[in-house]
C-alpha cells in the first residue's frame, strides 16, 4: 500500500476519529429524538368525531349522527348518549345507541315540538368520552343551528350553513401514511333528499397569510369520488414551500358558494426539516466549527508544530502528500460521522413520526455540514503553515470559531448597519454575501436553496441558485485546502 493510503488508513483508525464520530452521532441522535417526539405524526389525535344532523318532518324528529375518525373513515361501535328537549328545557326523550358499520346512528323521536334542542355525548367502547366540537344543536322554526363560533381544534371540523341553513361540515383530515398531507372532507347530511340531490364541488387555493381569500384563482385539487353519501374529500398538494401559508377551500353546492370559506394555515414541518432547523441552531455555528477545528488540530496541526510530523516526513512521502492524506482522512471521518449520524437520525424520525427524511433534505444536510467541516479544517491546515506553536494555532482556531462561527451574524449585521444599508432586500442580499464568507452558514444557504426560501423571500430572488450554491460549496472545500497545500509544499 502506498504511504498516502497508509496514512489515511491510520488517521481513520485513530482514537480521535472514533471520538469525533461518537460525538457527532450522540448529538445528532439526541437532536433527532427531540425533533421526532415534537413533530406532527401521521396518526391524528386519538379522536372520533360526531357530525350530527337533525330534522323535523312534522311530529317526527329525525336524528342522524355520522361518526368518523381523523382520517375520515367511518367509525362503528361508538356509543352515543343523546337527549332531546323542548324549548322549556324539559327532556322529551333520552336515547342511547351505537354507530353502525357505516358509521351512522339514526333514530327518530315522536314529538310535536317545532323548536327543540339536541344534546349528544359520544363514548368510546372503553367508556371514555369522544371528542365533540359543540354538542348542542338547536332547531328553531324548521332550521338547524348551533351557537358556536367556529374554531379549529385538532383534528378540527367546522360547521357551516348554507343560505338554507342546511349544515355543511368541513373536516381537516390527516393522511394515514404521510403526515405532511392534509385533506379536507366536506360532508353534507342527506336525510333531506333535496340537499342530497345537490351536487357538491370543492376547490382550493393557497395564499400568503396576509393576502386574503380570493376564489377566482382557485385550483380544482384532487376531489375524490364520493366514498360515502354526501362525503367529498379534497387533497390539496402542499409542499414545504407552503409553510405558514393559508390554504383556502371553496365549497359549492348546486347554486351557490358556501360562505364563509374554509381556511387554515399550513403549519406542517417535515420531521427532516424540523431536524435541520433544530441543528441549524447550534450545529453550524458551534458544534461543527469546534469539531472541525479540533480535528484539524489533532490530525495535523499538533503533529506539525510538535515536530512529530518530521518522523513521518523522513519516510518516503512528500510534505504535500502527507498534508493531503491527513486532510483526506480528516474529511472522510467527517463524512462517515455525518452519514452515520443522519442515518440514525433518519431511523429515529421514522420511528417517532412515520416519515423518513426526504432525500433532498438528507443530501443538503450532509453536503452542507460536510462542506462546513472541510472549510474550517482547510482554514486550520492553512494557518498551521504559518504558526509555530500549538498555542498560537489553537488560539487562532478559537478566534475563527468566534468570528466565523457564532459571532458572524452579529458582526455582519453590525457591518451592514455601519454601511447604512437599509432596504430590506438589499440588507438580506448583503447578509447573504456575508454569510457565504463564513463556512458556518453554508449549511443554511444550501438548505435555503433546497426549500426555495430565504428569510421569507424566494431564494432565487436574493441570488441563491444552483450556481451560487455549487460555487460557494466548492470554494469552501477547495480554496483553504489548496492554499494550505501550496504552502505545505513550499515551506518547512
Amino acid at each position: 500500500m502506498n504511504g498516502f493510503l497508509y496514512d489515511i488508513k491510520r488517521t481513520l483508525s485513530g482514537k480521535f476519529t472514533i471520538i469525533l464520530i461518537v460525538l457527532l452521532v450522540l448529538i445528532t441522535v439526541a437532536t433527532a429524538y427531540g425533533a421526532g417526539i415534537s413533530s406532527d405524526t401521521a396518526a391524528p389525535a386519538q379522536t372520533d368525531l360526531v357530525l350530527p344532523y337533525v330534522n323535523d318532518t312534522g311530529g317526527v324528529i329525525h336524528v342522524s349522527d355520522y361518526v368518523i375518525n381523523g382520517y375520515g373513515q367511518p367509525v362503528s361501535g361508538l356509543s352515543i348518549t343523546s337527549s332531546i328537549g323542548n324549548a322549556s328545557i324539559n327532556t322529551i326523550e333520552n336515547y342511547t345507541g351505537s354507530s353502525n358499520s357505516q358509521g351512522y346512528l339514526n333514530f327518530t323521536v315522536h314529538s310535536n315540538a317545532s323548536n327543540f334542542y339536541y344534546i349528544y355525548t359520544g363514548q368510546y367502547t372503553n367508556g371514555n368520552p369522544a371528542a365533540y366540537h359543540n354538542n348542542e344543536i338547536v332547531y328553531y322554526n324548521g332550521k338547524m343551528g348551533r351557537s358556536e363560533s367556529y374554531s379549529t381544534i385538532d383534528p378540527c371540523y367546522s360547521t357551516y350553513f348554507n343560505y338554507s341553513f342546511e349544515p355543511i361540515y368541513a373536516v381537516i383530515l390527516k393522511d394515514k401514511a404521510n403526515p405532511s398531507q392534509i385533506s379536507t372532507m366536506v360532508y353534507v347530511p342527506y336525510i333531506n333528499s333535496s340537499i342530497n340531490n345537490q351536487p357538491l364541488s370543492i376547490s382550493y387555493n393557497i395564499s400568503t397569510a396576509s393576502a386574503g381569500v380570493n376564489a377566482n384563482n382557485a385550483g380544482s385539487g384532487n376531489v375524490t369520488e364520493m366514498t360515502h353519501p354526501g362525503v367529498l374529500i379534497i387533497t390539496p398538494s402542499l409542499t414545504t414551500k407552503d409553510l405558514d401559508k393559508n390554504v383556502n377551500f371553496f365549497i359549492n353546492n348546486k347554486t351557490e358558494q358556501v360562505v364563509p370559506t374554509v381556511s387554515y394555515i399550513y403549519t406542517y414541518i417535515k420531521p427532516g426539516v424540523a431536524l435541520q432547523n433544530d441543528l441549524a441552531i447550534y450545529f453550524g455555528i458551534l458544534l461543527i466549527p469546534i469539531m472541525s477545528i479540533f480535528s484539524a488540530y489533532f490530525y495535523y496541526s499538533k503533529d506539525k508544530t510538535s515536530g512529530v510530523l518530521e518522523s513521518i516526513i523522513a519516510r518516503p512521502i512528500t510534505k504535500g502528500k502527507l498534508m493531503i492524506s491527513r486532510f483526506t482522512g480528516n474529511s472522510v471521518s467527517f463524512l462517515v460521522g455525518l452519514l452515520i449520524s443522519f442515518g440514525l437520525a433518519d431511523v429515529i424520525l421514522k420511528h417517532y413520526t412515520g416519515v423518513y427524511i426526504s432525500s433532498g433534505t438528507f443530501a443538503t444536510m450532509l453536503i452542507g455540514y460536510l462542506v462546513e467541516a472541510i472549510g474550517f479544517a482547510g482554514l486550520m491546515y492553512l494557518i498551521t503553515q504559518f504558526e509555530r506553536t500549538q498555542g498560537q494555532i489553537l488560539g487562532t482556531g478559537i478566534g475563527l470559531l468566534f468570528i466565523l462561527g457564532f459571532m458572524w451574524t452579529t458582526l455582519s449585521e453590525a457591518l451592514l448597519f455601519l454601511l447604512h444599508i437599509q432596504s430590506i432586500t438589499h440588507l438580506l442580499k448583503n447578509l447573504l454575501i456575508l454569510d457565504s464568507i463564513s463556512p458556518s452558514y453554508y449549511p443554511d444557504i444550501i438548505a435555503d436553496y433546497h426549500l426555495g426560501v430565504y428569510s421569507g423571500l424566494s431564494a432565487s430572488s436574493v441570488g441563491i441558485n444552483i450556481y451560487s450554491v455549487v460555487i460557494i460549496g466548492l470554494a469552501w472545500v477547495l480554496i483553504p485546502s489548496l492554499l494550505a497545500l501550496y504552502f505545505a509544499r513550499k515551506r518547512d
Partner: protein
Amino acid sequence: MIAISNLTKSFKNFKAVNDLNMDISNGEILGLAGLNGAGKTTTIRATAGIIFPTSGKILVDNFDMVENKTEASKHIGWVPELPNFEPDSRPIPLLKYYAGFYGINSADAEKDIVELMKKFDIYAYKDKKLKFYSQGMKKRFSLVAAMMGNPDNFLFDETLNGLDPQGVREVRDFIIELKKQGKSILLSSHILSELQNVADRIAIMKNGTIIKILTRDDLNHLGTTGIKIHIKNPDDKLDKVLLNFGQLEYDGYYYMIKNSSNVDPSDINNELVKANYKVDYIGVQNETLEEYFLNMVK
C-alpha cells in the same frame, strides 16, 4: 551514496548552511564535526528531506531529495538529534506504520521490528507508550526507526552523544557494521574525539561551511603528543630538569613536555625521583586533537 553540492539554507536572512559541498561514498563513514550552531543539524535535516534547501542539490543514491523526495527517502535513514515520536503510540504499531510507507506488509515488518528491538535492547519495553521512554530508550528506538525499509544511507545526528559508555560502544559497533555492509554514513558530533575511532574522514564545519576535511591518516599525525606531569613539591630547579626532555608548558597545575615522541616517560620519572621530586602524576597525553579542533573552529 550521498552527494551534497552548494547547499545553502537560510532562516530569514541568516545562513545556517552556506554553500556546503560534501560527498559520502558507499562503505564510508563521514564524521561531521563542529561546535554547536555550526550548521550540522541543519545540513542533516535538509539531507533527510525534513527542511527545504534554500539552494543547492542533495542526491541520495542519485535521487534528488527535492525533486524526487519519495524515492530519495526510501534510500536514507535518519536518526535525529532529538528524537520526537508520537508520544501516545506504542513502538510496534508505530514502526509498522512507518514500514507501510516502504510497502512492507505488516507481518514482514513485525519480524524485522522484533529483531531490531531485541538488538537495541528495547524489546522489553515493547508494550510501553513512547512518552514513557527515557531519552536513551528513545534514541535506541530512533535507531530502529531509521532502519525501517533497510536504506543504504544513514544520517546520525549527535547519536553517540548522551549515551552511556556501553551504549556508545554498541552504537559505534553498529555503525561500523553498517559500513561493512557498504552503506554510506554521516555521523555528526560537536566532540571531535568521539568521531576519531569511527570516521574514515572528518569534515570540520564552522559557520555553515566545511573548513577542512581530515582523513584518518591526518588524524593520526595531528598535533604532537606530550607527557603530562604533576609534582607535589616543585621548586625553581624543576624547569631545568624537565627542559632536558623537550619543550615545556605549564598550565598552573600540570607541566607538559612537548615534541617528546622519542622520550620514555619512565626515564623522566627516574630523573625526577633522583632529584627528590615527589611525582604525583606522569602520563602520555593525547588531547591535542581536541585542542587542534578547538583552535580551528573557535
